[in-house]
């Protein structure tokens, strides 16, 4: 066992972990933060996306011991002060159906909008290409991110297309 100290959503935790414990299991099982999902377990689907020192990564392909001393943000940390603009966007534009991919989509989009506050539709689609959604066909997810981008920039919010809601 190895002792690690990691800050998750602003709270510092010191834990003893088996070196082979995956980060996603640390988050879900040791810390009971089950918003981060396990989809494919092969770094393809992106359901387990979290932020590690501000960068979106797939937590199924990192050992928990590797994040010693680092900062992690999971979906649970987003709504600290009411819904995050991205969460509001997903709600307003129906950016989810079953919801399984949503936490990963949200965390990926957090980094995306931080690096590029005014992305084009194509940039959003490339930006979330490591996150698979099997329900929505992505259109409303793209709209949700556009909604959040507009809100975070302080721009007028896009009119929600009645055809898609």
């Amino acid at each position, binding site marked *: 066992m190895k002792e690690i100290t990691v800050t998750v959503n602003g709270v510092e935790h010191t834990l003893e972990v088996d070196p082979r414990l995956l980060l996603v299991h640390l988050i879900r099982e040791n810390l009971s933060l089950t918003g981060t999902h396990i989809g494919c*377990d092969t*770094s393809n689907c992106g359901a387990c996306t979290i932020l590690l020192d501000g960068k979106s990564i797939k937590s199924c392909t990192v*050992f928990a*011991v590797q994040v010693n001393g680092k900062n992690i943000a999971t979906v649970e940390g987003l709504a600290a002060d009411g819904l995050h603009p991205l969460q509001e966007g997903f709600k307003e534009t129906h950016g989810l159906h079953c919801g399984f991919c949503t936490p990963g989509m949200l965390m990926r989009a957090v980094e995306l909008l931080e690096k590029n506050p005014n992305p084009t539709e194509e940039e959003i689609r490339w*930006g979330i290409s*490591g996150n698979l959604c099997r329900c929505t066909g992505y259109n409303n997810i793209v709209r949700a991110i556009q909604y959040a981008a507009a809100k975070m920039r302080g721009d007028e919010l896009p009119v929600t297309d009645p055809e898609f809601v």
Partner: protein
Amino acid sequence: MIPSEFEYCRAGSVEEALDLLAQKGPDAKILAGGHSLLPAMKLRLNSPGAVIDISGIGELSYIKEEGSHLVIGACTTHGDIAKSTLLSEKIPMIVEAAAEIGDVQVRNKGTIGGSLAHADPAADWPASLLAGEAEIVLASSSGERTVAAVDFFQGLFTTDLGENELITEIRLPIPDAYTKSTYVKFEQPASRFAIVGCAASITRSNGSCDKVRVAFTGVSSTPFRDQAVEQALEGQAPSDDNIEAAAEKAAMSVEVMGDHFASQEYRKHLAKVYARRALQAVLS
């Protein structure tokens, strides 16, 4: 999927990593970004007794100009390489290859050194490193040596990397100003690994192709430089016919892989198509 048990060792410096490698012997594996090693460990294709984590070694993450070379630290992520303006100006195919790897999250974590050490036959890096005549610096507790990329890749998941060695740096000669390069790829739609990846780098003077370097990944179990294509174009003034004739020679001298995504015949066809596209892009 849970990997089998292992001893975890964190190295704070290259020296410490090399000492650990010497101590732990052939049963040890180096862990950097983990995006090649972890999947292999989860499937128990690889069950090392000890894992030496070098991801915390800041001195292995850099992209800089050093005399006549651009040098990349082994722990530099694909994402940092994809964003490098220095590389983009001098050797664009390197940046293009980096940007083709996986997705943002994978590029945020995976490292160039890890990908090279793993030597997946469908990895993106080898083509542009071969076409760029890269050298790979390998360190061990008994010293350092430099291997040409063409000698480094030896087969399916097989390289010249010794059991006690660590990849520390990738060195790329800065091509002269009249050189253009590109990396193009036909990707497996789910994994985004290369079914065929082709890098081309061409130096021109007075309208003719002085130096042509063309290399493939994904086509054969070992990535390779395709000298038949290179020689068909070297010394020639580029034309549609010349490009077509050179591309037709692609993958003639290797045993082409076949699988349920792309048969041998189809892959060979794709190699010609992607050779032509790469040459056209560079010569347009």
